[in-house]
Every structure is written in C-alpha cells, then in structure tokens.
C-alpha cells in the first residue's frame, strides 16, 4: 500500500509521555499523519505543543527516561519504527530518515571539523573509505552552496557563521539521500535574509532529490511558502490537517482561525489584532474535553465533555472540532467573531 | 648510676657470631644539620654528626661522663690559670695535615677571634691564650681560675679542626668538616642525608662499619616504621610513648642512657604574680611531679631534685624541692591574697613539653589557678624568654659540659639574665656570690658543698620546679649492636656492628 500511494511515512496514534516528578506530561497525545514522497508537510503550533517531540519520536530520539513512546505506530515503508531493534533503527537514522535541528549553534560537535562530521554519516551508511567519504562531504558542502568547501570542510563549527552551520547541518542530513527529511525549525535562529536563503535551499534540494520533508515551524509564513500540506498542533494533538492553500483560504478549526487572525501581516495594515484569550492547558493536566475549549469563542457543552475526533472534510482537510460534527448546535453565530 | 646500654650484652652475643663487620649504618633523625662547623653549631642534630665521629677534642667523656684522654695523652694544672696538655703523636687530619700543638692553637684562636663571630665564643671566653710549648705540648692560659675547663674542651665545640682547612677556606667547613675522627665526611644532601665513611688512617681503633648515613625523616611514626621494617638501623629520637611498642616488637630494641639535662617548670620571678615567692611556692607544692614522669614521660628519665642531673658535677642527692601538698599550696595562695589566678605557661612545640604543660594545667586547676598554655615554636620561645615576656615556662638546661658551673652561673646568676640562660630573671646577691666562689674554687669537695647549698636556696625560693632528669632513648633494629648514647645525647658509634 505504501508503494501505491507513495506514502513513505505514516504516523498512527503516536503517544509520547514524559514521566516526571510533577506528574505525567502528555507531550504528544495521539498524532496521526502521513507523508508522501516529494511532499512537504508543515507542522505548526505554539511553543510547547509537541512539535519537536513528535519529530524526535519518529526517530526514537526521545530522552529516555523521562520520555517514553507510549503507543502508536510509525510506519516507514511498512515497517514499524517504534518496535524496531536499536541496531536496525540506527541504520535508518541519518540514512533513510534525516533530521535538521533548530539550533545551528549547538547542534554541531564543537571539536570535530565539519567535513569529518558529514563524512561520519556517510561512512556509517555507505560503503566508502575515509577518503571517498571526505570527498563526498566536500561535494555535499558544495551542493548546499558553501563557498570554498575544501577549506571549510577542515574547519571547526566555531569558525562558521550561523547560516553556514545550518547549511552544514543540511549537508549532513542529505548526505545519504534520505527519503524523509525532518526539519525542526531550521530557520528560527536565523535572520530573515539568511532564513530566505536556507528555505530556498531546502526547496531546491527537495525538488532535486525528491524526498519527503516534514517542516516544523511556528511561523505560518514559512509554512505558506514551503509546504504542500499543513498540520496544526495544539496541546499535543493535531487540530487541523489540510492542504496549505485550503488552510490559509479557509481555516476551519477555531484555533487556526484565531491564529491567522492574530497575526500582523507584512502586506496588510490593521488597526487592531485579533487575540486568542486564555492560555494553553498544562500538559500535565489536560482537560477531558476539547483542549481548546477553554479558549474557544464558540465552545458548547459537548466541547467540555469529550474530545472530538479528527474529522475528514469534503475539501480533503481534517479538523478536530465538534463544530464539524452532527453534535453541533450552532448556538453561537461565528460570523460575529471573525468577520 | 651506670649508664650502659641495656640491650648491649645481648647484642654483643649476636655480634660474637662473627658475621659483623662492614656495611652501611642508616641512622634516621628528626631534622637535618644546619652547619657542620663546630664553632657555629648550636644544635644537637648538627653536633651529633661531628662529635667523636669527624672531630675529636683533646679529651672526651666516657660512658660515665668521666673525662678521658683523647687527642691529648695527659694534662696537668700548672697553676690556677695555666693548664698544660701533652698531645698524642702521629695523628693526621682527614686532609692529610698533621695534628700538633699548632693545630690546637689555630683552632682555638679562630674560635676566640671576635671576627669569627662564633656563637660559642662566650663559652670559652676565660681562655686568654693558647701557647705552643713544643709540637706535642700546648698550654692554655686563663683569665681567671676556671675549674671546669676540661669539660668544655670535651664538648663538641672543643673539636680540633684541620689547620690546613682553616687556612684555605674556613667558610667551607660549614659544609665539609675536616677533623681527625674515625669517620671522614663524605657528602651532604641538604634536607635528605649526610654520609660519613670510615677513616682508614684512623689513629685509634677503627670502626667496624664502612659507612654511616644520617637520614632526615621528620615524622616520628615513619622513623619508627623504618626501624621496624629494617629500612633503617637506628632512630635516636623516639617518642617516649613508643617504648612499649619497641620492647614488644620482634625486630626492634631500645637503648637508654641517662642524660645531663634537667627539665623544669620555671617562673619569671619578676613578673606579677610570680614575683611573690608564696605564689611560686604554692604552685611548686601543687605539682605532682611523679605523675608527670610516669604519665607524660612513660618513666623515661628520673625525678629531678634540682636543676642538675646526677651526672653533672655539683649534683647532690640532698637538695629537696617542694613536696606535693595541696593544702599547703592553697594556704600559701591565701596568704598571698592571690585568688582566681590566671597564669600563662609558655612552652616550645616539643610534644612531651606540650603534654607536660597540659598536665600542669590540669594539676594547677586543683588549687584554682587557671593556666593558659602558649605553644610557640622554638625560635619564638627563645625570644619570648629572652625578652622576659613570659610568666611560667617549661624548659630544660643541657649542662653541655657536665659541670655545675655551666648550670648555676648561666641559669641563676644575675649576670645571666635573659639570653645567657637566666630566664627566671632571678637575682639573689647571696647566691651570686656563692656561684662565683664555686667557680674559682679548685677543691672539688668544697665546690660540691657550695653547689649543694646554693641549689637548695634556689629551690627554697621556688625559682623553678625541677621535674625530670633526662634519659636519652634510641630505637634500633635488632641487627645492630654496639652503639651507645652518651649523656649529652650524642650517638656513639665506636663499637657499632651490623649483623646480616
């Protein structure tokens, strides 16, 4: 089935909990999504909603203890990564699924020359000797647009600027032609002009190499520019999952709508911004109903009682909201709120 | 009393088995020498290297501290102020220079020359001139009659130095002694060890051993452990508390020798409240001296009855210190009107002395005298006593010459206040006169009488509380024998043997 739909990665009901002294933090609490070949999936959401934990769970890089994948499957080309032995998992990491992290300043080993760090990944997964791997590393640096790559390969991370380090990270991630690239906020730490360079680079390389990309970000602008589909996360859940165009044109979940409304925009003048009142529930004590209910301007009784399912919509998007179910009374007219 | 080595007879037997000559003797000691020039040495560890090993004097004391011929064959007192010595012939110094009357003259002239600035000069200040009569005869002309002359000549300061070395580089003598003794200086690794080798041309009986090395091992426990394991042979500075352990050990033995020195509790007689004889007496009555000997000194040494030990000329059995009598003590304090006394007790940082101070502190508590112990290192101790800042203090008097004059004049004469030795700041014109008289008296019995009398005066005036006559102890591994300690605490190696 994976081959037919060209779905390479499928996450089903993934749950990752943290067991701490303060209690159990349900950081990721039942996530479903799938990624097709050549597709870019955006995951957006506010800080702490579980974006990073989701991506780390896929590669089983959760710090254990206190973290633990409590349930669900991560099907990569039909194999469940959650139950794979460690040695098998290592073969996949960096080879078939790679990852780029948010902090280019701290994500590279400070005492190892960058070329060697790339070569290490190559040698781990491809039958190459040291010299070949090094040559390939230089090629990769060239590919991500680092000038004089031979020289740079011998340098240590502190000698490179933030943008260059992020390019190195990308080179490393792509060195084994992965089928899936997970980019966890790859540009948040960078200046806009550099961010533009990096995003452009990822787009180019994806087109060239044809991998599936999971782009994690909190910047809706980045999503709009790079992604085919978007998953919006809120408090450990996906609340809306839709093709990018649909999501921006016609956001369905009240949270998504509020989010878009509260965003000041570069190409638009507004006197006042919409605000989402209240705050995210603590991941240690999630309400039993809809997690957004306490902040939702339309919430009805049912929202407080039971969590809604992720409901498929006619336009192909999915949304986790009672509003789109038969239980909805529609007592509060929504037009008064947003338009 | 005869001070033979208690272990000697056993050792002799061991030695008699015949496997005994040669070898290197390792002696471990607390501290390093400071100088090896007899005219500048002021401490025992330095003197011990030279004495009767590298240097010899005209005369030497035997085991009973009776003076015997050494470099001098014989001597006579020509008149009160003229002494004549006949020297042995055929003796050469380690550097090849011959020993003769000129050598004797050269040695003493250097010592007495103010330019030399020898700290020992004072001791020999009665010598006006050393006169060479012929190569084997020498005369000492004195300023005033001085009965104990022989005893100072027998001390380590009286060692005869090679005139050649003196003429060439007297400074070098500090590091490289040149004498006539049975051992030749070999090397000195500062802070670590000094080694001597056997003098193959020695004029007397040659030592059995090839070499002797004096090693510095500051830690008491370590020194003893080295003896126990056989890493070293002799340790002549043993804590008295280790006696039982040494005696019980299978590999160690103990050597004991009566000493010349006396340890006492002194009073600064010019400092209130100790300027009141009643207070001093009260304290004297309150100190239970016997328990100090057994408790602190583990019965090493004997109870002293004056500032002179039995080995010193001038000692008398008849002198009587204050009896232990708390009621009398309390009565005296009351009389003196001294209540709630607070007195400081100064001592140097020697362990036994500190212990003794603590015991005295606890004993005086019994008569309501609060004692504050002040422990200072030796240099400060000397300074404080020299400047009279102290109240009570614990000290010892070495009696280096073994003669009563060295004891009485330095300790009690008014002229000796301060650095010279009278740290009691005691001043009694009657006593002064008696001490002076004894000094000039040539009749030994009369001298003895005078000393007995003056010593009792000092005790009656409670200038000090005599505590202990020294006894020197050394530990050795059972494979050594034949060495002895002389009364001035010098290690004597003339008969030493190492068994394999």
């Amino acid at each position, binding site marked *: 089935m994976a081959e037919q739909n060209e779905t390479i990665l499928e996450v089903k009901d993934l749950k990752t909990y943290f067991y701490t002294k303060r209690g159990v933090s349900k950081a990721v609490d039942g996530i479903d999504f799938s990624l097709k070949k050549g597709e870019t999936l955006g995951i957006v959401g506010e800080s702490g909603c579980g974006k990073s934990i989701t991506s780390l769970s896929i590669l089983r890089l959760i710090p254990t203890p206190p973290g633990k994948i409590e349930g669900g499957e991560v099907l990569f080309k039909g194999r469940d990564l959650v139950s794979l032995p460690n040695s098998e998992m290592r073969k996949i990491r960096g080879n078939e699924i790679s990852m780029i992290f948010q902090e280019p300043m701290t994500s*590279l080993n400070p005492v190892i020359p960058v070329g060697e760090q790339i070569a290490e990944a190559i040698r781990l997964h491809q039958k190459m000797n040291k010299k070949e791997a090094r040559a390939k590393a230089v090629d990769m640096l060239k590919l991500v647009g680092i000038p004089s790559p031979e020289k740079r390969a011998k340098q240590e991370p502190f000698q490179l600027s933030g943008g260059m380090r992020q390019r190195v990270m990308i080179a490393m991630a792509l060195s084994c032609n992965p089928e899936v690239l997970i980019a966890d906020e790859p540009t948040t730490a960078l200046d806009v002009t550099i961010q533009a360079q990096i995003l452009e680079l990822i787009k180019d390389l994806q087109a060239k190499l044809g991998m599936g990309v999971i782009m994690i970000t909190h910047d809706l602008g980045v999503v709009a520019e790079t992604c085919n589909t978007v998953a919006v996360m809120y408090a450990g859940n996906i609340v809306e999952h839709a093709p990018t165009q649909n999501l921006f044109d016609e956001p369905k979940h009240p949270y998504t709508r509020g989010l878009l409304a509260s965003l000041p925009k570069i190409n638009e003048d507004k006197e006042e911004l919409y605000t989402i009142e209240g705050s995210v529930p603590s991941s240690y004590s999630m309400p039993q109903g809809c997690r957004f209910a306490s902040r939702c301007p339309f919430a009805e009784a049912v929202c407080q009682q039971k969590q809604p399912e992720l409901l498929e919509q006619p336009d192909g998007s999915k949304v986790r909201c009672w509003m789109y179910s038969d239980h909805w009374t529609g007592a509060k007219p929504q037009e008064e709120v947003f338009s | 009393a005869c001070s033979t080595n208690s272990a000697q007879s056993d050792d002799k037997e061991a030695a008699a088995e015949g496997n005994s000559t040669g070898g290197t003797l390792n002696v471990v000691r607390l501290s390093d020498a400071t100088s090896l020039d007899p005219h500048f040495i002021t401490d025992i560890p330095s003197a011990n290297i030279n004495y009767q090993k590298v240097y010899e004097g005209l005369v030497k004391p035997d085991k009973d501290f009776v003076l015997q011929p050494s470099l001098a064959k014989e001597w006579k007192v020509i008149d009160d102020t003229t002494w004549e010595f006949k020297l042995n012939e055929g003796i050469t110094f380690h550097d090849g220079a011959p020993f003769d009357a000129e050598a004797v003259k050269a040695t003493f002239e250097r010592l007495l020359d103010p330019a030399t600035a020898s700290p020992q000069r004072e001791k020999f200040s009665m010598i006006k001139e050393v006169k060479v009569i012929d190569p084997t005869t020498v005369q000492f002309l004195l300023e005033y009659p001085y009965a104990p002359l022989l005893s100072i000549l027998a001390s380590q300061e009286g060692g005869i130095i090679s005139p050649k070395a003196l003429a060439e580089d007297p400074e070098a003598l500090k590091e490289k002694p040149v004498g006539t003794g049975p051992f030749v200086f070999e090397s000195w690794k500062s802070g670590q060890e000094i080694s001597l080798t056997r003098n193959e041309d020695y004029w007397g009986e040659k030592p059995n051993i090839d070499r002797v090395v004096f090693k*510095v091992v500051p830690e008491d426990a370590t020194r003893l452990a080295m003896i126990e394991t056989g890493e070293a042979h002799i340790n002549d500075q043993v804590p008295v508390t280790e006696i039982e352990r040494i005696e019980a050990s299978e590999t160690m033995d103990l050597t004991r020798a009566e000493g010349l020195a006396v340890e006492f509790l002194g009073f600064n007689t010019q400092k209130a409240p100790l300027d009141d004889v009643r207070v001093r007496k009260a304290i004297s009555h309150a100190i239970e001296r016997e328990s100090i000997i057994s408790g602190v000194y583990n019965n090493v040494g004997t109870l002293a009855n004056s500032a002179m030990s039995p080995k010193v000329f001038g000692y008398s059995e008849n002198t009587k210190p204050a009896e232990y009598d708390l009621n009398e003590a309390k009565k005296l304090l009351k009389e003196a009107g001294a209540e709630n006394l607070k007195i400081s007790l100064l001592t140097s940082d020697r362990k036994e002395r500190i212990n003794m101070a603590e015991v005295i502190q606890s004993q005086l508590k019994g008569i309501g005298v609060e004692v504050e112990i002040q422990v200072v290192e030796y240099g400060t101790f000397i300074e404080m006593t020299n400047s009279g800042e102290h109240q009570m203090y614990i000290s010892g008097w070495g009696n280096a010459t073994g003669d009563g004059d060295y004891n009485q004049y330095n300790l009690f004469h008014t002229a000796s206040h301060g650095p010279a030795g009278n740290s009691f700041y005691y001043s009694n014109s009657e006593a002064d006169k008696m001490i002076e008289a004894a000094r000039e008296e040539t009749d030994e019995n009369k001298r003895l009488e005078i000393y007995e009398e003056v010593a009792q005066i000092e005790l009656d005036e409670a200038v000090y509380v005599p505590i202990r006559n020294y006894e020197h102890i050394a530990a050795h591994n059972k494979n050594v024998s034949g060495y002895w300690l002389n009364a001035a605490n010098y290690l004597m190696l003339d008969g030493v043997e190492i068994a394999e």
Partner: protein
Amino acid sequence: MLMFILRRLVQTVPVIFGVTIVVFTIMQLVPGDPAVLLAGEGATKETIESLRVQLGLNQPLYVQYMEYVSNIFRGDFGTSLKNNQPVLDEILLRLPITLELAIFSTIITIVLGMAAGIISAVKPYSITDTVVMVIALLGISLPSFWFGLMLMYGFSVKLQIFPVAGWDSLAHIVLPAFTLGAGGAAIVARMTRSSMLEVIRQDYIRTARAKGVKERVIVYKHALRNALIPVITVVGLQFGALLGGTVLVESIFAINGLGRMIVDSIRMRDLPMVQGGVLVASLVFVAVNLLVDILYRFFNKRIELN
C-alpha cells in the same frame, strides 16, 4: 597560537610580581627576629646585632623588598639562615623531587580519575556509578595525611609491599604518589562524570544519534573529547592542591622535597628559605596554569570567541 602564548606569558608577569609582594609581606609579619634564632641559645646582644646587619635586617622594608626582587631577578634567592647555603641551590636540589612526586601523582589523578569518571558516566545511576562515586566522595573527604599514614601502616609495615619512606626507587614513589593523587583523582572523577553527563545532554549528541552513530562511538568520540575540556582546567587546579599537599605527604614519607623544606624552614624560621620555597612553588604552579591554559586553548579553540 604563538601570539596567545606570548600574551599569556606577558599576563603572567604581574602575577609573579604580586606573588613576590605577598610572600615578602607575609614574611614580614613573622613575629620576632630571625637573627636571635640564628645566634642560638645564649648568644650575646652584640652577636645578634652583627647578625642583623649581616642579614640586612636593619634596612627599611621597601629597601629590603627592592633588594629582594632585584636579587631574585639575578637568580639570587638569598642564603639560608639555617645553613648559609644559597637558597636557590637548596631549592634546586629539592624541586626535581617534588616535581617528580607531583607528576606521578598527577598521572594517578588523571588516569584513575578519568577512568572512574567515564565508568560512572557511561551508566549513570547504576550500581557501578554509585559505588565509584561513593568512593570518590570518600576520596575528597578523607584527610590526606591520615590516609597516607594508614597506607603506610597497611602496605609498608604490615604487608611490607612498599618501603616505608625515602625516594630511591619506583617502589618508593607508589604510596606517596597515591596518597597525594587520590584526592585529586576523586575530584577529577566527579568532574569527568558531571561533565560527561552535561555533554551527553547537548544538541550535538542528539545530532550524532540522528546520524545513526553507535552509543559507544558517541561516548568516546563525540562526548569524551568535549567533556575532557573542562577537566583539563580541573587537573590544572588540582596540581596546585597537589603542590600544597606535598607539604604534608613529603613530611610523612620523608621525601626531601620542596614542601617539606618549606615546613621545616617555617619551623626554623628560615625566612629566605620560606620565601624562596613558597615563591618557587607558586612559580611552578603559575607555569603549570599557563601550560593548562595553552592546552585548554588548543583543545577548545572556541574560547577566544566568547
């Protein structure tokens, strides 16, 4: 790099000057008169006075200090009051011994400490870790002089494996070096462990994992190199504690080193020797710190950027 070394050298100069001032000042606080001690029991006032003049003790303080420093620059540390030897000779005689002891102890500190630290860090919170860390805690809590005596009692007197004291063979070195190195090893072990655990948390370790690197390689290649950087500094500082520790250990094991010389000289109030000894010990420490700094920079080039 050369520039860095040069600059560090230049920075060291005022420190050395400061050290001479402190040493000199402290020695001035010593109560009493060294001349009196030197002259010995029963010396006359004239003897003492002439000694004072001879030793320059009658000069005003700052003159004495200037004299002192300029002499040091000429390699003249004065002469011992005790035995009239040039202080520098006395020091040079002992310094190699102390350095030898210090180096052996440092080796013990490093090898033992790092090994224990790594063993602990690889399996944190395991039984091995707990045992190693409890031993390490004891290591820093035991008084070293006491520990040394216990070792001597056990290994020399009772078991007779090692000689009691002295400094002649390799066997002589074992116990003192261990006594001296044990505390440092404990500290290094703890430091290595916490540094390792800290490094393991870093983002770049996660990056290495995401590449599919094996845990063992992560520990020894990616983590250890970074973790050892702060440990270098600790080893450097430990060297100072170690030099200080020689004071006790050299006394216990009768080693004729600088530390014991200082203690003995203090006891004798041999001022020039104390001054010289403390000064040289400090200079050695300053030099070691310089070396450590250079090593540190060599291993951690980022330092300049912060």
